[in-house]
Each structure stands twice: as C-alpha cells, then as structure tokens.
C-alpha cells in the first residue's frame, strides 16, 4: 500500500501542475533507499563537502570514513585539517579538493561538519558560518551530519554545546526534509573516537534514509576488543541473531536484511504463523522457532535453541502487539496481553538468554514514538513501550563491562498492515508529521536494527534511536 502523495510526486505533470497552481501541497521526495547487502563503498563517487570548527580533533576520523566509503571530498577547512584529508585521499585514491572548486550551484550528497572544537556559546558561530554558506548544496536525499563532542563531566559552559548542536540539527532536519535529505548529529564521548567511523558511514549511507534530526551518541562504555578490523561487508557473517515476531512486517524485513549480511537468523513467531515463519527461515537460511513469547516455557526453550547453536550474538525483541482502547473501556485482559508481550516477556527472555550472549553481543528492543509521546487509547501500549526505554538504559549499564550493548529503536510512522488499517485522516496526520513528510517502510527500521547489531555499532549503548523521518513532535 503506497503513499499517494509520494506517488503523485513521481509524476512530472502532477508536480508541475501543483507548482504552477501554487497549491500548498507538500509533495514529499521519494527516498533513495539501499535494499541490498552492505557494500564496501556505499558513497561511491558521491561528492561530500566537509568543514571543521577551529580546534576540532575528529577530522582524521571523518576524512578516513569519507574516503574509505568512496566519497569525493571537498574541504572547507584550515590547512591543519586539510592534511588529514590529504592523507586519507592518498590512502584511498580520493584526492583532496577545496570547497572553492565546487561550481556555483553544484550539489553535494553530504555536508559533514566537525564541531568538536566548539567550546562555548560564542563558538557556535562556526556552525552558522559553514552551514549558512553551504546548506543549499545538499542534494535531494542527501545527508547533513554534524559531529561534536559530549562529556558527561563537562563544565556547564561546554556542556551547553552538545545540546545546542542537537537543537540545531533538529531544525536543520526540518529545513532539508522537503528535499528528502536528512540531518543528524553524532556526539562522541571522550576516548570513543575509534567508534566514530562505522556510525558516520551508516548515517551517510542510503540505509539511514528515514532517520533524521536524531543524535547518535558514541561512547567507549561497552568496551570490546574484536579480532581484526570492523567489517563493512557481511558484518554479521557467522553470527547467530534471534528475531522475535519475525513472521511479518518489521520482523520479516529485519530477518531478511540480517540474512543478507551473513547472519544465521533464528526466526521466532507464534505457532499460528508457522507457514510464514518456516518459509522465512528457509529463505534466509536460518532456523524457525515456533512459540508464543508469553508462554512460561518460552524463555527456557529459546535458551535451549540458542545453546544448541553455540550461543547468540544479538537478540532483537521485535514481537509486539497493540490492544487499543481508552482506559475506561479497556478490559483487564487487553491490558495484560500488551504488557505481557511487549514488556514482561522481553525481560524474561533476556534473563534466560543472558548467559548465552557472546562478548561483543547485542540486545536490541523495539520501543515506539507512541511510547515516548503517548496516544489516546494506548495507555497499555505506551506504558509497555516507555518501559522498554527505562529497561534498555539500565540494562546497558549492567552489561557494559561484558562488552554487550543494549539499545532500542523507536519507530515513527511505518507503512505496515497495521497502519494501513488506520482511518485515512488519522493516517495522513501520522504520515505527514515528519520532516520527510512521509511514512517509513519496514526496511528502514530493519536497516537500523542491522546496524545496531553489527560490530561497528560497539560505540552505541543505552540509546533510544528514533526511526521517524524527523518527527515534528517531541525530541
């Protein structure tokens, strides 16, 4: 079921008619997505314009990330920063070029600004200087990325910078959203610079198409020393990943995306869905597991299956239900079902599989924008999805020493069977309330889940990552 406005937007005559009649129809841009497996150079030959504030120290990581991802760098920075781009250019055959060589009106796929040198309110001017000059250059479905520093123990004068960057990026996301472009922020904690490159690569690639206006915090908290370099192709080769609720929707898209990256996917869903689950498991070369997550035996049976596979690298708690009713009219069983499936079983299963998690492992839960903002008729759902947030934050601290990261994805409006059933007006409201002016697809959430499961996301833990197209409401 397709987004009718995006389809209209694809029709040249319709677009020009809307424009010439001056109709206030916000035609959203059809997003460029990457459905295929991860490639070695996702930014193949695309121009990227990079800048840096005085005293910024993450330039060499940014330069390496851009060059190894295949981008052609144009640099608007001081000589000191140019050296980093020159070195990365020599290593990857991407010669340094200056921003001044970009012709009038020439568009770039990405604008990347290293704001790590900004020390206080006055330093924020560097943001204005760079983006005021260049924001117009972002191409359709392009990327705007700010990289900054954050330190939980910073002095107040410096602590304000990280959140200021966040506010800037949220607004910028709404300005460029019309073009289908995204704007995001990566905040790097002390000693975490080595974890920056894979995150930057994901944010710049087409796989982050529906993530906008979001901060990614990169930390050294969950330390893990893997063998060899972080892989950018088939990152989950040989790794066992459990996906609950895999039969359809986001779960199915996630299982397929994981399979493409070499994972052995344990596809879990209810026995009633055995046909779909078995077919999926066959398609991705994984293992089907048919049980109800609320079954008291479920945690033990899951643990047995995973033990038989030699342990598990990542657990993705995707199974979830809605039983919407205003609180007054909600019967007890509707409350119980939602809390049970969405929250209690997540806790029980996680406890049971905890000993089987490998070092450098992952727990990823699905929260929801509804959990963050709340909705009429969703007191049960919102309680469960917000509960996930608290659980993830605390669990991430508990598992940090083992090198296991714990995160949650909070999807916004995603086009699925469920959302197709919503009445038109409400559905339109949900779809349009984002910077990108459209709903996301299950693959958008799936790609974010695959990223968080990958070795390159070791620097992210305790995060609630919204996949919402830059939702207009809330932060």
């Amino acid at each position, binding site marked *: 079921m397709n987004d009718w406005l995006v389809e209209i937007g694809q029709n040249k005559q319709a677009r020009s008619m809307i424009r010439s009649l001056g109709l206030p129809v916000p035609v959203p841009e059809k997003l460029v997505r990457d459905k295929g497996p991860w490639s*070695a*150079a996702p930014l*193949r030959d695309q121009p990227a314009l990079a800048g840096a504030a005085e005293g910024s120290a993450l330039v060499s990581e940014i330069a*390496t990330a851009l060059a*190894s991802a*295949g981008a052609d760098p144009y640099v608007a920075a001081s000589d000191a920063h140019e050296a980093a781009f*020159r*070195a*990365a*250019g*020599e*290593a*990857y*055959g*991407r*010669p340094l070029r200056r921003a001044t060589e970009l012709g009038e009106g020439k568009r770039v796929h990405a604008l990347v600004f290293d704001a790590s040198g900004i020390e206080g309110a006055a330093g924020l001017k560097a943001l204005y200087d760079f983006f005021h000059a260049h924001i117009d250059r972002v191409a359709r479905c392009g990327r705007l990325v700010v990289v900054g520093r954050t330190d939980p123990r910073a002095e107040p004068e410096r602590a304000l910078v990280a959140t200021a960057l966040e506010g800037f990026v949220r607004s910028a996301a709404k300005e460029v959203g019309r073009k289908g472009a995204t704007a995001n922020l990566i905040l790097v904690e002390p000693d975490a610079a080595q974890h920056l490159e894979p995150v930057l690569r994901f944010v710049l690639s087409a796989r982050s198409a529906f993530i906008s206006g979001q901060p990614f915090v990169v930390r050294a908290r969950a330390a893990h020393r893997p063998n060899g370099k972080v892989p950018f192709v088939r990152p989950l080769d040989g790794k066992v990943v459990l996906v609950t609720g895999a039969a359809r929707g986001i779960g199915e898209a996630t299982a397929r995306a994981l399979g493409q990256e070499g994972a052995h996917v344990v596809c879990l869903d209810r026995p009633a869905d055995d046909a779909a689950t078995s077919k999926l498991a066959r398609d991705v070369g994984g293992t089907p597991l048919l049980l109800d997550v609320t079954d008291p035996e479920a945690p033990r049976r899951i643990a047995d299956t995973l033990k038989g596979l030699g342990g598990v690298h990542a657990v993705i708690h995707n199974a979830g239900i809605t039983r919407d009713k205003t609180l007054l009219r909600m019967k007890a069983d509707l409350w119980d079902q939602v809390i049970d499936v969405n929250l209690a079983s997540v806790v029980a299963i996680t406890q049971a599989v905890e000993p089987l998690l490998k070092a450098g492992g992952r727990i990823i839960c699905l929260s929801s924008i509804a959990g963050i903002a709340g909705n009429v008729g969703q007191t049960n759902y919102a309680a469960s999805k917000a509960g996930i947030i608290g659980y993830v934050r605390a669990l991430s601290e508990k598992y940090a020493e083992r090198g296991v990261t714990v995160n949650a994805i909070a999807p916004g409006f995603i086009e699925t069977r469920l959302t197709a059933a919503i009445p038109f007006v409400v559905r339109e409201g949900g779809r349009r309330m984002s910077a990108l002016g459209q709903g996301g697809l299950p693959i958008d959430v799936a790609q974010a889940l695959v990223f968080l499961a990958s070795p390159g996301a070791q620097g992210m833990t305790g995060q609630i990552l919204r996949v919402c197209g830059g939702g207009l409401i809330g932060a």
Partner: protein
Amino acid sequence: MGNVKNGRRAVVVAGARTPFVKAFSEYIELDAIALGVLATRALLKKVDLPYREVEGIVWGGVILPSGAPNVGREIALDLRLDPGCEAYTVTRACASGLQAVTLGAAAIERGEADILICGGADSTSNAEVKLPQKLVHAFAPLALGKPTPADYLSAAPKLLPLTELIPRQPKVAERSTGEVMGESAERMARRNEIPREAQDAFALRSHQRAAAAIASGRFEDEVFPVQGAGGKWVHTDTLVRADSTMEKLAKLRPAFAREGTLTAGNSSALTDGSAAVLLMSEEKARALGYKPLAAFASWAYTGVDPSDQLLMGPALAMPKALARAGLRLADIDLVDMHEAFAAQVLSVLKMLASPAFARSRLGLDEAVGEVDPERLNVHGGSIALGHPFGATGARMVTTMANELARTQKKTALLGICAAGGLGAAAVLERID
C-alpha cells in the same frame, strides 16, 4: 611462496620468447598453441635439453581455445615430448604467465618434479568471436541431437529479433562492472592525479630503453626469430618505437574518455606472442651441468575491489612479496612492473611511496618506499614491447633472471596488475 622445503630450491635455468608483434599482423596465422610450441622448442634447443627430460608443462593464457583450453598439454603433444610429460594450463588474466612460473616453482620445491617448462602465450588475433548465446541455444539441439524438420521450424522464431544475432566485438571489459579496462585506468589516473605529461614521459622512457636494449643486442639471448605470415621472418619486437618523442605522444587523442589522459601511446597494445621459462630443482640443474640464473625468494597474489581501483593490485602484492622475502624496497636492486598503462604504473608507484597508504591499507608504520626510476623497467616494458597477456609474466622472469646474472645484482621485484582486480608480485634473487 619460496619456502624452501628440505633444502630444495627451484631455479630459473633459462628463458626464451618470440618477438612480440601487434595483433592481426605477422602472427595472424599462429594461434596460442602454435606460439607456445615455438617458444618451448626454441627454449629446449637453446639449452640443448633432450625432450624426454621435460616432466611437465605449466602454461598460462587468457584467451584459451574453446576446443582445447589445456594449451600446455597441446604444446607437449604437438612437440612430441615424452607422452608422460604431464601438463596443465592456468588463467589469471595478465598475470597468467607469472602464475604458471610460480606454480612450477612450488611444485619443484615440494618435490613433485625436477624439470618443468613454465610459460604463457596469447594470440589476440585468434580470439574466438562468440556467437550470441541466443543463437547457440537455438541451434545446439539441432547440432547435437537428431533433429526433425519440426525442430528446425521451431528453432527459427528463436532467432528473432535478428539484430541480436550480430556477433559483438569483444572488449577488454570487466564482467562484474561492465567497465572497459582503459576506462578503469582513466579513473585511476584522475583519482591519483597522474597528469598526461607524466604518462607520456613514462611511455617514452619505455620505448627508449627497449630500443636501446634491442640495439645493443641485450635481447638476443632471450628472443628467437619467428617465421610469420607470408614467410616473413620477425627478429625483434615490432611495437618498439625508437624514434618516439614527447611531441609525437602529445599529439595522440585520448582513447578512453573525452577529456582523458590515456592514449594509445601511453597504454599497452593488443599483442601476439609467447614466452617460456625452464625451471629445475637446483640439484638437478647442477647435476646436468647448467648454471642456474636465479631463484624465487617469494611471490604473492592479491585481490582488490574491481569497481574501486581495478589495477592497483600490485600496490598490495609487491609489499606482501617483500615481506615474505624478508626484504625492504631499499634492498631491491631491480624493479620490473608490467606496464598495462603508464597511469597504472605511476598510480601504484604513488601508493607505494605514500605513508598514509601504507598505514591505512597495508598496516605498516612507514611507506613501502620510492622506486628509483633508474632501477625500474631497465629495458622497457609492456608499453614498448607489447603485452601478449599470458606471455608477459614469463617475459619478465626471463629478462630479470638474465639481468641479475649479467650485472651480478642480487634481487629483483616483479609486479603485475591483472583484470578482475588482481595483483601479482614476486622477488627473484640471483644464485651464485
């Protein structure tokens, strides 16, 4: 990889090659097998080795005859070597010749043989032009079975549309990316910032050095005369231009891109020819009274993403071979690199000289090093001499082994880029 087991070393005793000529000229009637026979016969004559002593042939080629792809075996049969002389043929694009030689060396070191002939040949003139697969599928049942008139009738509609039946001109294009090799090299020239003048100067040097080598008789020991089409004798490589100048090279139009820097003058040309190398175990060579020229200290083969920089393979293979031999670039006396395109060689040299490249791509602390132009391709290279794909590796081994013996230098480093994003390298050391 040059690991000497039980003290067995494989040594280069001698090498011989045909002169290299442009495709579709003097050798048009000599296919890869015929060219291989000529080189092998000349080699055996030169060292005066009885035919029955040859235990095996390891041969390399790119354009293999579809009816008889094991060219090495056909050479053994045509030459009437001992029927017990086994043979196989390998293909690793432009590095096929070197691959054949290193495989032979490995077999000798493992004790599987004492005397092997290793080499390669390619006859671009005799490349088979493939009929469109549609035609093959339409007619194969008719050719292979017992067709009835009804079968003929039903085959006819499969031929439509007729335009799809015209055989396509074969291009040197990558199967995975569809990119013509020259276009890949053109992109490398841009990404590594290699200007046209530098490429032309490099090409000029190749021609000048090759011409000097021919004039001084340096190649007389390696190159034997061949009787080509119309009974005409060919004594020297016909592609070398002794009178080449920068002005002449500058006049050529770009060959692969409108505003490009690569031309026919600074690229290697389609060529026919063959080369063969005689390898023996050191013990056997001395027992038979031969003076070995050189042995392999190491070899290395690498792969890179063909869609990124297709021809940068040697930038990874050459450091790998050096490391395996326990040597540094500064220790190497001679460097011989296959000149697919001047831009390709210059790009690889830049990467070898770059500390950033070494740190990011090779995991080393410092750059591999700058190759001294005086030590590089001292008698010219593929741009001047030509590049029959399978023969080039064997040509380079022959020339370097002879050069080490003549000059009494110690080590030579070879580097070859190949289609498919492959790289090959080897380190030869002189034997006293």
